């Protein structure tokens, strides 16, 4: 049965619904990253400036462009938070409203809805992330190299990985009545481990393997290397290979987990209970 049309229907549904909450969406995708991530970090970073230069960051990461470092991280965080929270909120609201039952009545694989919601969230968060990059340059003096466009494949791999993660989040939403705590914790941990706030080389040694297992770590590293000229963790081709492997693994594990959760709940009779 062709998959594309129902997936696009779900994307359209989510985008139309998001458009009905313009203030809420603006706050979530644009303002929140500013006052929760970018501004506090910029201000903390500025406390360490020596004659207006981020000498510490230059020593650590190979760039003294503090705004550039943070806004590139904000792009990846936007994708990560947008996708995970988007899927969580859509599924939870569907269950609360009573529409989940009817969605699951359709003659489709149920992970169609996860894919559709993830894609819709990625559309919104990509736009928001790019806008943040532009604002970083215009308002805060970030300077990106023209080679930043070469990082597009890395961002696409991030999106693939996030689709896999979305399936895991969806499984959690189905299994738990209230998955907000899980989503909060997971997105926070992934953002930190991916190097959104600081170079992963700052992490304690025992945590670094976790960071190096994430496809988002390599994707962000490649983005910063291309945009700011930072020293990469791995040579770029190897970084792509690692990101690709991680993304595929996340998709496979995510889909398998979602299907197991779905079957378990069908058997327990709580698939659509709210």
């Amino acid at each position, binding site marked *: 049965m062709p998959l594309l049309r129902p997936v696009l229907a779900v994307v359209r549904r989510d985008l139309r619904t998001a458009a009905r909450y313009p*203030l*809420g969406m603006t*706050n979530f995708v644009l*303002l*929140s990253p*500013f*006052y*929760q991530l970018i*501004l*506090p*970090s910029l*201000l*903390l*970073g*500025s*406390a*360490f*400036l*020596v004659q207006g230069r*981020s*000498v*510490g*960051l*230059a*020593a*650590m*990461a190979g760039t003294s462009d*503090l705004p550039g470092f943070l806004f590139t991280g904000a792009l990846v965080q936007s994708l990560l938070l947008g996708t995970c929270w988007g899927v969580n909120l859509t599924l939870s609201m569907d269950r609360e409203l009573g529409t989940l039952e009817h969605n699951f009545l359709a003659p489709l694989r149920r992970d169609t809805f996860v894919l559709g919601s993830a894609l819709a969230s990625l559309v919104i968060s990509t736009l928001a992330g790019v806008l943040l990059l532009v604002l970083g340059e215009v308002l805060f003096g970030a300077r990106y190299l023209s080679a930043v466009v070469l990082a597009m494949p890395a961002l696409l791999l991030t999106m693939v990985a996030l689709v896999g993660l979305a399936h895991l989040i969806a499984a959690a939403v189905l299994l738990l009545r209230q998955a907000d*705590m899980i989503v909060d914790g997971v997105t*926070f941990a992934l953002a*930190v481990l991916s190097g959104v*706030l*600081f*170079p992963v080389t*700052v*992490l304690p040694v025992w945590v670094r393997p976790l960071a190096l297992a994430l496809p988002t770590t390599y994707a962000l590293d490649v983005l910063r290397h291309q945009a700011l000229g930072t020293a990469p963790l791995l040579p770029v081709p190897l970084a792509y290979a690692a990101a690709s492997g991680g993304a595929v693994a996340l998709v496979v594990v995510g889909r398998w987990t979602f299907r197991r959760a779905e079957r378990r709940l069908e058997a327990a009779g709580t698939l659509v209970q709210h």
Partner: protein
Amino acid sequence: MSTPDGLRAFGATARKEWRTVRRYLANLAFVVFWPLVLPAVYVLEARGFAGGEARALGAFAARAGTAEVAGFLYLGWAVFIWLTIVLWGPGASLRDEQLRGSLESLFLTPSPRWAILFGSAPAHLVLAMAMLATVGLTLRLGLGLAVGPAAALRALAVVAASVPLLFGTGALLGALVLWLRDASGLFMLLRGLFTVLCGVTYPVAVLPGWAQATAAALPPTHVIGALRAALLGGARLAQLWETIALLAAVGLGLCAAAVLLLGRVERHARHGRGFEWY
């Protein structure tokens, strides 16, 4: 209604709120997990910005008044989390009653309105104190911060003076959201403002002049500053006394304002569409 009856109503509200609060595991996570993990992330970030360069660390110490970066960040985030507890606890309690449909039955009772307004505060005060105790232990045992009895007493005095301030803020917002009927949007905005303007993650000295003036007008800025001065800056009680007195006075003023505002909201509801309209 007499004062003893009012106290009884207050106690009943507090007990009801506590029964609700203690049922949620998320609350425990909030007071134990986030006060430890969130600042730790910013400590790592600070290490990234310092990069091991003595010049960078020296620049921080000059601006912050202390070279104790970890303690600086932990105290800032502790106040931020306290504020979050207040906003989503007492700040949202009346709105929650309204959404559940029970606000009307509360206002039908002869209970004094201050009992309804502040009754939810004690349960969240317990959470807040548990959180602050966690942070205190982390500073002492985890970060090895030398905190003597005198410093601890100074910090306790700041915390005590801040209680009416923060819960008065929560009560005032609680009355306001009944009117505005949008709690989440307002709270997210306020939390964002506090994060950016009150020096949670940075010394206020790095802000431009106009922003420093704005920060000075916000009570949480002084709570954070006083706690840092008491525990990290070696300030004596005599030096903190004015700040402590100001915090207590502003706090009592906010509490009074909250009671007055709730009275206005109640009159507006009685003349308009009632309590349950949202």
